[in-house]
């Protein structure tokens, strides 16, 4: 019986600098048997350990079909993430997972799919976007609305360009007023107002949103205005976690554990939470 708290070793094989405080780490499992067996669904997360420093929760940002490696995008905000940012290629880290539930991709088929992301919130969405795009014919209209405080803060810039080039998806990028550069060709405006301008239809569609709490708050108000019901809105929650498997109690809200019963929830489920979490 494997001890669920003990991580497996993983090696960093690539580090991409996304912004001034976000880096994406590509990891390969060194543990025989784990390398080929590790599989996950978009929306799940891992517990990422730095020896002698600590462990943190990160969603898997690579696509489930990317065999042989996983990617995590890490924003530098505290002790562990600062230590992660000092790691180099070939350094070993510990990974536990995958944990959590996943985006219900089956429920999105034959519907319009709208992604609304802000800042680092694009990380969990990216896994799902790539999975959806690899089966593009199963979905109707696909819209990606993504923004950040400034051009500098946009993540996955290479991928954003690829998505913009595609004719079969609508990609709208925006930066907050004041965050544009001289040659910025995207929109300028806060994400909720850009969402309102794009005005996707609430009929037979599903929205997946992730970003800072203030953005989510206003995006939900806008979606309500546009006619989206709470069951049509999916998001992925962030919560302090330690064990990742529903035992330590930290992420316990009402009778659910965000690590075990989430982190993906519909807005109607979140409204049912006994406790307000933002």
């Amino acid at each position, binding site marked *: *019986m*494997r*001890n*669920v*708290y*003990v*991580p*497996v*070793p993983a090696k960093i094989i690539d580090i991409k600098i996304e912004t001034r405080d976000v880096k994406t780490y590509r990891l390969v499992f060194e543990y025989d048997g784990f390398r080929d067996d590790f599989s996950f669904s978009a929306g799940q997360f891992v517990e990422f*350990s730095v*020896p*002698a*420093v*600590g*462990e*943190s929760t990160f969603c898997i940002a690579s696509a489930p079909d990317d065999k042989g490696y996983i990617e995590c995008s890490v924003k530098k*905000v*505290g*002790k*562990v*993430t600062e230590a992660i940012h000092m790691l180099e290629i070939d*350094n*070993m880290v*510990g990974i536990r997972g995958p944990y959590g539930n996943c985006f219900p991709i089956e429920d999105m088929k034959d519907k319009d799919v709208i992604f609304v992301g802000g800042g680092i919130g694009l990380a969990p969405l990216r896994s799902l976007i790539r999975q959806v795009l690899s089966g593009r014919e199963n979905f109707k209209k696909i819209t990606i609305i993504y923004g950040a405080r400034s051009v500098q803060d946009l993540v996955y810039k290479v991928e954003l360009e690829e998505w913009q080039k595609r004719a079969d998806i609508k990609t709208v990028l925006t930066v907050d007023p004041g965050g544009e550069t001289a040659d910025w060709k995207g929109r300028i405006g806060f994400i909720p107002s850009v969402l309102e301008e794009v005005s996707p239809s609430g009929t037979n569609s599903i929205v997946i949103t992730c970003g800072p*709490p203030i953005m989510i708050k206003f995006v939900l108000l806008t979606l309500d205005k546009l006619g989206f019901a709470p069951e049509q809105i999916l998001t992925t929650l*962030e*919560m*302090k976690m*330690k*064990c990742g*498997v*529903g*035992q*330590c*109690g*930290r992420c*316990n809200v*009402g*009778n659910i554990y965000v690590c*075990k019963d989430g982190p993906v929830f519909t807005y109607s489920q979140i409204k049912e939470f*006994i*406790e*307000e*979490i*933002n």
Partner: protein
Amino acid sequence: MDMLILNKNELIDNIKSLFKDYEIVGPSQLDGKLYFRPVKSMDEVVWDFVNPVNNIKDFFFPPSQVLYELRQDRIKAFEPDTKKKRIILFARSCDTRALNLLDKLFIGNYKDTSYTARRETTTIIGLSCLEPADRCFCISLGGGPFATKGMDVSISPVRKDKFLLHILTDKGKDIIAEQGTRPEREELSLTEALKQKAEEAIKRKINIPSDFFEKFDSDYWKGVSQACIKCGICTYLCPACHCFDIIDEGYFRIRCWDTCSSDTFTKMAAGEDHRKQKYKKYRQRIYHKFQYYKENFGEIACVGCGRCTTYCPVKMDIVEIVNNS
């Protein structure tokens, strides 16, 4: 279920014979207070008591334990010594009931390997409670001074020098060597009378209001939580509390007890905390025990031992607080 009568000397001899092959944990004095701790002989064991300061969860879910060593070039897991068998002596029914509650979490979806190993190698000898304390309220939560849930062997007094043993599991069978005598009807009635007397002595009752769920948003919690100083004693001494922290000390990853009343329990790296105010923390403790655990596992995570009330430095009374909500 086997029942037998042993007199006190026979019982002591039986237990003495177990010191050879088992580590024995029992109630014994330390610095003027009573604790469950490893003992080397029956002379150290106390027979007349209500309940020690600590409870038996310490021996399955220790205050801190090293999980593994994590370095760049190796990961070494630490598993508990499962060759060493252990007996917990004279546990009360409230504490043994709590262990069954913890089983639902630790041996659930993800089996906690060290907890499971310790459960398998430990045999529990329970002792019925003759004189409950004023703080006890086990009956209103489905327990009782002579209850046997969670025990492998239960010892109930018949008279001062005679005991009725119930052997409840195979593990219990393995440790009772004495044949004893079959209980006579008269002896059973004597025990039954002691049981009635003990049950009547428990006057405190906890009464969870039927609309407890709806009371979540009430301002009541702001008032009752004011005295709390977030010391965590209630959590550490509660047999049913089980939340923990995972921290790094050097290259060792350690799991240790934690309390939802701690300031850092829900605080995230960039400073967000959805439970910053004290009343929210206290409310979480109460609702986790009396609402959420019941919704998830079918039972309330409180066994009525009363330790939280006895040792709280500001005398917060969980029974009063829940009953008046």
